[in-house]
């Protein structure tokens, strides 16, 4: 009974507030994209380079462990005190969260590329950059993208918590049941889930587009262990 009521209420909410939800969703996308962007720029090159030279495994893998151990709430709280309320603090907090999976996976994906292929490339006289670009990265794509997807979905699903620190987005509704009622919370949650799914699919599509034809496997990625919800 309650379930049915809540669900219908949620759909009502969505239907009656399209612009409101859309603007909140856009805010959330902005926040998530910014956070992911920072994490990508920092962690991806670092991970790839470390993986190429097969060094720094402890850092790369430790980053994930540390990342998991940092509760999103704590991060948000800390950065709020450092950077004040608003967009910046939450972006940074979420970026820190996203760094773990991206760093670890970019490291592992390059580190695990078939050594024989790399050795052959070295023997043929390819430079480091050429090996990375032509051999390692194409072969590393699946695992790399898994990390990206995990990071992206984590950020999107965690962003609502940031609302308590001025993060805006759909979280504003979710943490404010007093104003929007349970249907509002549920409705906004559906939007978050839809957003997560969209991001997941978008990245998966990107992965397929970027993968060289010969390497395209048609497996849907399975377990997402290592992910941390909001």
């Amino acid at each position: 009974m309650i379930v049915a009521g809540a669900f219908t209420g949620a759909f009502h909410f969505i239907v009656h507030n399209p612009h409101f939800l859309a603007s909140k969703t856009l805010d959330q996308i902005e926040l998530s994209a910014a956070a992911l962007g920072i994490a990508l720029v920092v962690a991806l090159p670092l991970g790839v380079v470390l993986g190429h030279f097969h060094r720094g495994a402890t850092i790369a893998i430790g980053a994930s462990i540390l990342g998991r151990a940092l509760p999103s709430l704590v991060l948000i709280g800390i950065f709020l005190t450092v950077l004040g309320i608003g967009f910046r603090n939450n972006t940074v907090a979420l970026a820190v969260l996203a760094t773990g999976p991206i760093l670890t996976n970019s490291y592992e994906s390059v580190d695990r590329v078939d050594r024989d292929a790399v050795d052959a490339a070295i023997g043929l006289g390819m430079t480091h950059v050429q090996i990375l670009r032509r051999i390692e990265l194409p072969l590393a794509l699946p695992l790399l993208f898994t990390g990206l997807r995990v990071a992206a979905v984590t950020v999107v699903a965690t962003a609502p918590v940031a609302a308590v620190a001025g993060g805006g987005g759909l979280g504003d509704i979710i943490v404010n049941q007093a104003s929007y009622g349970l249907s509002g919370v549920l409705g906004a949650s559906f939007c978050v889930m839809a957003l997560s799914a969209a991001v997941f699919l978008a990245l998966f599509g990107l992965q397929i587009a970027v993968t060289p034809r010969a390497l395209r496997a048609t497996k849907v990625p399975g377990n997402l262990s290592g992910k941390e919800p909001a």
Partner: protein
Amino acid sequence: MSLASGPVIPNFGKGSACVRGDHTFCWDWVRDHWNDTLSPALVQHIELTVIAVGIGFALAFALALLAHSYRLLEQPFGIVSALLYTIPSIALFQLLVPFTGITWTTVEIALVAYTLVILYPNITAGLRSTSPEVLEAARGMGLTRQQVLWRVELPLAVPAIIAGLRIAVVSTISIGTIAAFLLPKGLGYPIFVALGNPTPFKTEIYSAGALAIGLALVCDALLVLLRRLLVPWARLRFA
């Protein structure tokens, strides 16, 4: 959703200069409030985690054994777990309230769900990780199905299980902070309280945060130690 409010800026007027000025970190506040704020929060948080992981593990283990012996349930879980992770935990907590009220139970149900969803695939994968030749040798030597499971497959699954436990424990501690949105318990509570203030009190946030992070890291380290004890064979090299 209201937060049960506790002391906002503690010790009105009685605070030290540090506290009143909201300096970066006030040890005196920590000392003064260890017993009434931080320590109970820590204990509650540990309780929360132990119950969630305990139940989650028991369930995941039972289900995994069933699935392994009867070859069912393999696929649905991938999808369910992917779905569950897209639900913000804050939302999930609130969504359970109509069913189980604003109680420990609500929080635990959500936490157990997240834990289950991490542990089940790990345990199943671990059980399936035995090499085919080891299984063939075991069968050929005359071990019964049960014996193969308990004497060969399970011991060999321990590394995967512990890996899953590490993730589950740390995740639970992390999500547990958000539980304070619902109930004034756990290490998230001091943080929410501080955030609810126009000028958030830094020390409170940092100390509770440090405890949460510390707890997670300590548990992770303990599990690594456990793995070393239980699995002496996994780190050997050919000598």
